[in-house]
Structure formats: C-alpha cells, structure tokens
C-alpha cells in the first residue's frame, strides 16, 4: 500500500505540533522519521494511527483518500503501530495479547485458545519472531515483548508498520535482532516507518530519511547521508556530537560502596516485592573520574541511585562518602555532605513544577544562609542567585519567576544541574541526565558534567544510552539484574558491552573473575587487579578514551562472549538470558547476600 500524507497540520493550543507535513511511504522500504523530542514525530504517527485527529490535511492510500477516526479505522486500512510504551497487558499470555480485539471464538463468544495459539505460532515462525504463545507477557524480556507488539500488528495484516522509538528500550544485541526482523518485513513487501532520534540507527537501517524539526519537514535524505549533516538538519545548527575531554586525573576515593543490597518492589508485578533490586554491589569512585553505569533500564539502576541518595532503605552493605559512613544517613544529610543528584525523572523527583525557576534553584539550600536567615527566606539573595545561574547555565526562561513546568525539558534539566552543582559538591550522581533532551542540550549537559569532573568531583553517571556512556565515562560498569557484570575501560567494544548488558559473559570471564574477587577483598589488596578491577592503578593511560590498553587481560582474552555467540534472546521466554544468568550463578554461590535470598 502506497501511503501518502499531505499537508498534515495539528495544533495544540498555540503550539503547532505538525505544520503542513507531507510524507510518502512506499511498500518494501524502511522510512525513517528523524527528529528531536518535540519535533512532532509521534504526533504525526498518532494521527496516522487514529489516536489524534489532524486539524488539516489528507491521508491517501494508493491515491484514494482515507479517513481515520480511531485505531479501528487504521487497523482496517492496514496500518499497524508499535508504541514506544508497549500496549501489552502484562498479566495476559502472549496469545491473548496478540489476538486481543481480533480473537478466535467458538459459539457464545467462548475463546478458542487453541486457534489463538496456533495463529500466533504460525505468524511468529513465518517472520522469525520466536516467542512462546503461552508465556505470560509481563515475564518476558523487553525485546521479546516488542516482538509481541510486532506480532500484534502482523496478525491484523498490517501493510504499513509504524515503530515509535523501538530501540529506546533495547540492548544493542536486541536492536540488531529488531533490525533483522525489520529487514525481513521489508522483504515481504511491507512499508515500515521507523521513528528515532538516534542517527546511527537511522543510518544503519533506513532507505529514506525524513527529518522533522519543530513540526516541519526540513529535509529528506538517502541513507548514506553523513551523521553531521543529519544532526545539523535535526537541530538547525551544527552541533558537536561528542564533547571533547581530557584525560581524567583521579584523586582519592570519594565514594566507596560495599556489598550494597537494596530491596526491590518498584515493578508492581507479583513477586517483585520479594526480590532485591540491587544485589550485592561493590564499587568505588575517585575524585575527578566519571564512572559510567551502563545497562538496560530496570536492572536496578534507579534503586541504586535512590539508595545512594537515601531515598530507599538499604538491606545490607555500606556506603562511605569521603571516608564517612553515610549508609543510613537521611537525604538532607547527604546533600549537606556534598552529593549532587540529578534524578532520572526530573519532573517527578527533581523539580516542583508549579514553583518558579528561582525557588527550584534553591530547593536544596533554602534553609541555610545566604538564602535563609532564621525562619525567613532572604528573597533578595534568592533572586540574585537565580539571575546569576540563569545566565551562567543559559537557562531559557521568560523570567526567573516563571513556573518551572513551563520550561522545555532541556531547560528544566539545566535548572536541576545549576542547583545541584551550585553548591560544594564532592559526588555528582547523574541518572539519565539527558533523557529526552535535544542534541543541543545534551551537548551542554555533557560539557558541564565533564567540567565538574575536572574540578575534582567524583561522578556516577547512570545511563541507558550507550553513546552517552562512551562520551563521558572514564570507566564503565555494566549493571544487570542488580549486579555489575563487569568493569571495562572506555574503549571497550560495543558488542562486548551489549553482551554484558544482556547478562551474558561478564562475571564468568577470567578477567572479570579477578575483578569480582577483588571487589570483595579489602582495599589495598589488589594484586590481581585486571582492567575490570575495582581498584584502579592511578595510571592515567586508561582514562583517555582513545588510549591504547597496554596492560592486563585486554579484549583478546574476552573470549567467552565471543564463544557464546551473538545474544539470541529469541528463545521462548528468554531462556538464553536465563541460561546466561544461571551460568553466572555458580560464581555467586558463596556470596552471603545470595544465600539470604534463596528459599529455604
């Protein structure tokens, strides 16, 4: 089906989300829609899927006008959509989710589960989307859930498939797998619309790239367009994709975490309340270095940060900041002792949306001089500080008394950054600091984080964006199911990180075994420290991104990942991941924190 959008316009109040957009999608191609957050990509696709009605414009299918008032119409027209936030019922089986709305029934509306199952199985075999129809959807790894979403569209015989930011939740391995599926679907003659803001992915998979900026189409390019050109089109000016940084000069140990265990229970799935989200982590961060914590979302990163900030109780283990035990200190104490915190969800945890910018800038220090004298706020000083910081951090706001919720995401993040590094900070905890930000703001935030490092602040950077991890980290730790599966230098190949993120390899590898044991030995006893070791020699060579690795068991010895082969999470119920994890369990056997967790 040849799908054509003509002059689509959608306004939300005074904001023009889509401004006369023309787009043409041809069968058998992958068409990327590239743009920053807020460029109008999702709005456009929601219009195409009937979730939003356009103010102007027409949609043509094979030249004939198409009216889409609801997802039902879109489905009938052969349009399928895989949403960024999965539209799957976690407590349903895969077969139930796939056939929902299009169920197989017998008399009286009784479900014919056998036929539902068969349908799913047939489809999944035809397109190499392996998944067990009887598995409970909520138990599946994210990558497999995404397959279920794709199957949902295919079962309705979608000829045009919209994928909204499909790679945001995937490991590199899973992304590769998704690309394979996309190519297969393309070969079957379907049209795929691939929404993304990641340049590399777009270049890797798309046949045609349409770039959106502020609701307008600003260009259409073939796949071989350079990254710089695409970035410039996206942002509207040339941008520095990777912030320059010098080698780190690590100083004394600032943060020392030992055998940290933090209870879970955030997920809301049955059983989640009994699992530990952070399960025996030990690591150190030195002044003047950035430890990047990579990993797919939901592997305990959130809980780690919240525990370090004192927002979650710690089951066992200890946290020392600058040689002071802060394991059970209150958040206010931690702020005072010099932790800066950029929370993952800035609107929820970082800002008070209805407060003005000026007050949001002093949320942490409002009760101390110079902002307070006794019980009274020193409004003059608050205003003066706000003016200064707004200028210094280039916060774009109408005034310092504008409610912070009226600012764009990037500027909101700058408010948080300005506040958190505005006081004396020893440790900066940055969790997903650039999520949802445009390329320009990302550049700014990255530069400030590196500046803080160079001032001698220890930085823990938690990010699920590998680009960000590579751009900033002096050391990389990969988190999987509440543990670090390994520490790596910043020039580790992305494939290896991907395996670690999927829980494959890691602790089992020789180099890491050393690292793992050294994690549990007292400080100073680091004779067998490898590149993944906790105790880093103070040699500078490792810390510059481009530097050669002269010592230790380097990449050649990382054989196991290679031997295991590429991650194949396609197994029903994600058994490969499980296999990887059970393999690792052997090395954990003597870990006291694990035996606590074992059913007796």
């Amino acid at each position, binding site marked *: 089906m040849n799908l054509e959008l003509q002059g689509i316009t959608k306004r939300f109040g005074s904001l023009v989300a889509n401004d006369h957009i023309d787009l043409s999608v041809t069968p058998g191609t992958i068409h990327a829609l590239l743009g920053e957050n807020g460029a109008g990509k999702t709005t456009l696709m929601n219009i195409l899927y009937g979730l939003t009605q356009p103010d102007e414009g027409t949609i043509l299918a094979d030249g004939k006008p198409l009216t889409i008032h609801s*997802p039902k119409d879109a489905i009938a027209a052969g349009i399928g959509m895989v949403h960024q936030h999965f539209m799957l*019922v976690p407590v349903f089986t895969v077969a139930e989710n796939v056939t929902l*709305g299009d169920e197989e029934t017998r008399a009286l509306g009784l479900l014919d589960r056998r036929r539902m199952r068969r349908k799913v199985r047939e489809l999944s075999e035809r397109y190499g989307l392996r998944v067990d129809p009887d598995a409970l959807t909520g138990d599946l790894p994210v990558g497999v859930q995404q397959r279920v979403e794709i199957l949902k569209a295919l079962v309705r015989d979608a000829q045009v498939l919209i994928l909204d930011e499909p790679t945001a939740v995937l490991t590199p391995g899973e992304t590769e797998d998704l690309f394979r599926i996309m190519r297969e679907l393309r070969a079957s003659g379907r049209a795929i619309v691939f929404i993304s803001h990641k340049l590399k992915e777009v270049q890797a998979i798309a046949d045609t790239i349409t770039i959106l900026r502020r609701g307008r189409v600003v260009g259409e390019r073939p796949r071989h367009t350079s990254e710089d050109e695409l970035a410039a089109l996206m942002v509207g000016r040339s941008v520095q994709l990777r912030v320059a940084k010098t080698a780190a000069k690590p100083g004394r140990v600032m943060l020392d975490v030992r055998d940290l265990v933090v209870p879970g229970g955030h997920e809301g799935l049955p*059983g989640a309340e*009994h699992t530990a989200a952070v399960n025996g982590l030990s690591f150190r961060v030195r002044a003047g270095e950035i430890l990047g914590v990579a990993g797919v979302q939901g592997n305990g990163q959130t809980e780690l940060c919240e525990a370090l900030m004192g927002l979650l109780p710690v089951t066992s283990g200890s946290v020392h900041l600058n040689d002071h035990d802060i394991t059970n200190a209150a958040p206010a104490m931690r702020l005072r002792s010099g932790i800066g915190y950029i929370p993952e969800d800035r609107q929820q945890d970082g800002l008070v949306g209805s407060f003005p910018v000026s007050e949001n800038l002093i949320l942490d220090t409002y009760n101390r001089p110079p902002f307070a004298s006794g019980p009274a706020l020193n409004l003059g000083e608050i205003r003066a500080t706000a003016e200064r910081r707004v200028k210094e951090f280039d916060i774009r706001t109408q005034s310092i008394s504008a409610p912070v919720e009226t600012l764009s995401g990037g500027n909101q993040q700058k408010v948080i950054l300005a506040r958190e590094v505005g006081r004396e900070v020893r440790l900066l905890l940055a969790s997903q600091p650039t999520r949802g930000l445009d390329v320009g703001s990302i550049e700014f935030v990255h530069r400030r984080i590196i500046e803080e490092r160079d001032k001698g602040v220890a930085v823990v950077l938690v990010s699920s964006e590998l680009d960000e991890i590579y751009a900033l980290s002096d050391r990389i730790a990969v988190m999987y199911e509440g543990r670090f599966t390994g520490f790596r230098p910043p020039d580790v190949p992305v494939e290896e990180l991907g395996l670690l993120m999927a829980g494959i390899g890691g602790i089992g590898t020789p180099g890491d075994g050393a690292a793992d044991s050294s994690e549990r030995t007292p400080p100073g006893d680091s004779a067998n420290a490898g590149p993944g070791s906790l105790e880093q020699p103070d040699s500078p060579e490792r810390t510059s991104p481009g530097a050669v690795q002269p010592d230790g068991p380097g990449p050649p010895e990382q054989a196991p990942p290679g031997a295991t082969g590429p991650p194949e999470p396609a197994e029903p119920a994600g058994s490969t991941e499980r296999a990887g*994890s059970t393999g690792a369990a052997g090395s954990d056997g003597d870990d006291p924190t694990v035996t606590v967790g*074992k059913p007796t």
Partner: protein
Amino acid sequence: MTTLAATGRIPLSVSRRFLAPATLLVLGLVDILVFGKYAHHGDATFAFSQPFAKVTVPNLKVPAAETAYALGAATIVLAALRVMDLGKVVRRLSIGLALAFFVIALLCWAYGGSVNSFNVINQFQGTLADSIPLILGALAGCLCERSGVINIAIEGQLLIGAFAGAIFASAFGVLWLGLIAGSLAGGLIGLLLGVFAITYLVDQIILGVVLNVFVSGLTGYLYDKVLIPYSNTLNSPSTYLPIKIPLLGDIPIIGPVFFDSTLFLYITYVLIVAVQVGLFSTRWGLRVRAVGEHPAAADTVGISVKLTRYRNVILAGLVAGIGGAFLTIGSVGSFGKDMSSGKGYIALAAMIFGRWTPLGGVGAALLFGFTFELQSILSTVNVPVPSDFLLMVPYVATIIAVAGLVGQVRAPAADGQPYITS
C-alpha cells in the same frame, strides 16, 4: 545469576513466616483452654437431617470436652507442621482445617451436655441463604472492578434493590416484578456511578461512599414518609418460597442444602457460572480484563474503553440489585431502614479476599455467610456470651480475613483510574 532470575522471589520475612503458625497455635490453645476446659459435662449432639426428610442420617453424639481437647491438640500439630513450610497445599489446608476444628470445638462447648442438638443442615442452608447477597455483591464487584472502576457502591445497590423489590412486589402483588425492579434499581445506581466515574472522572472511592449515603438517605426518607403510612399496600410483599428440585433435593445432606431453596439461590448459581466463565473464557471477558488492566492497550486495538466500562458498571448494578431484592422478597419480606447493614462492604471484602475472581469471591462470601449463620444460631442457644459480641462475629471475621489471611493481593492494574484520551 541470582535468585532474581532463578526463582523470582525470596521467602517471606521472618515475622510473616511465624505469623501463621502462631495464629494456629493460639487457635489450638483456645480450643483446649477455653472450649475444652469450660465445656459442660456430657455429649454434644450434631444432627444431619431435618425433620420429615425422606432419607435420614443418624445424629452424631460426641463427648464435648474430650473432642475439644483432641481438636486443640490437632491444631497445635498443624501449627508445628506449618513452621516446617511444606508448600502451598499444606499451607492452605492447615488454615482451613484449623478454622474447621475451631468451629467444631466452639460448638462442642456451646452444645456440650445440652438437650438441644446442633443441626448441621440448618447451619449450611442458612449459610447459603445468608451468602446470597454477599455472593451477588462480590460478583458485582468483580464485574465492575475487572473493567477498572472501583465499586464501593455495592452497599447502596443492595439497599436500593431491597427497597425497590419490596415496593414493587407489594404494590403490584407480583413477585417477579419486585425482582426485576430491584435489579433495575441497582442498575440505576450503577449508571450513576458510571456517569460520574467514567464521564466526569470523579474520584471513585469518594463517589461510591457518596452514592451509599445518598441511597441510605433517600430510602430512609421515603421509608418514613411513604412506607410507614402505606405499609399495608407498599411494604408488605409476599416472599419467594423454597422450590425443591426433584430428585436432587432428596439427596441426604446435600439435597436440602443446595437444592431446596428460593429462586434467588438458583439465580445465584447461574450468575456465578456466567460471570466466572464470561470473564475468563470468552471474548467479552478478555476485553473487559484488558480494559481493566491496560486501557490504552485495549483502545489501540479498537476496543472502546468507555463503552466497556459503562456496560460493566451497569451490569454490576443489575446483579447487586438482585442481591438487594433478596433481602426483602427473598427473605424477610418488608423493607426496613438501612437493612443492608454493611453487607455491601462485606461483599466488597469478599471480592478482595477472593482476589478479584468470581469463584474466590464466592468462597469468601460463603465463609462470611457461615459466620452470619453461626452467630444467629448461637444466639438462640444459651451461650454465656453477650449477643452484642456474637453480632460482631461476621465483621471480626471479615477484618481478620482481609488483614491476616489475604496478604498481598493484586487489583486490576487500572482499577480506579479514569481513562483520559487527548
């Protein structure tokens, strides 16, 4: 890599682990130290047939004190077993057995040395009758909450069903008209709940309470102003008489309990099956549950969230209304002020106790019905316990059940959350 992946859970915390054995131990000690020790000398008699039954089963006589001692000892053994944690089946069984032992020991104490016998058939027959409004209320709760709307208004639906049932059956002299009117009245409250919860996004808990107060006030006012002055015409309906099902009704023990009752019990049977099968084995149920768990997912595959919710909320009202009608025309006849007396809330508790499943709710409702009936039978014998305390029994049982035994339950994920589309 760890228990995270391997088993997905770690055992219950220590306090929680010893809570259940400790409870069992206390029950066992009460069996022995209270019921056994203070039982009158002599036998307790249990009767298993009603007078004039075609087939009779002989009465059972047991020595009261000795039986209570034995049951107490058995309960303590269960407590010990429970400490060892022998799996789910043993866990469930141990609680059930301990409660059964407790009740039998209680009866031994109450009837020991008495000339009266405790009629088991009457107890179970009464249990079923007392459970009807609770079961229908719990089914109504399931229907409503599975689609994602919290239904606190079951109480009001029962009350208005009772009210309408009495008036219509009395005024027209036609019983089934009362049944239909009661059901429709409940449905009307459901519609109100729907309009405010689904269309106007009012907080559903507050809304439910408001509706209950509204119904209580309305029926109370009309009762004073209309039903009392005209009680002969408007508030003196006849009641449904028991219908004995041929053959099945003659089976000893089972027959009189399950197959010799009013139309309401048979309607309840049908509705239990219909709701259970409907929710879990039909297309309709799959869609309802999808709407209750993840409305956006349902919406994106073309299922109307609002329509589904409206339909279910009204259906729930209709079902609860039947339960309300039972209170008058299925049971005592005339309407009395606030006669639902918290049964709607108990039904709600039964639904939660039953983990939002129809069958689970039915089980819980039967448990509560059993305590209601036990209390009313005990109040007729000379038990040295003030009747006020006996009246508390069903409610205390509700609290213990919900707080102690239910533990962690999971409501439908979108329960109580309005669905707003842009």
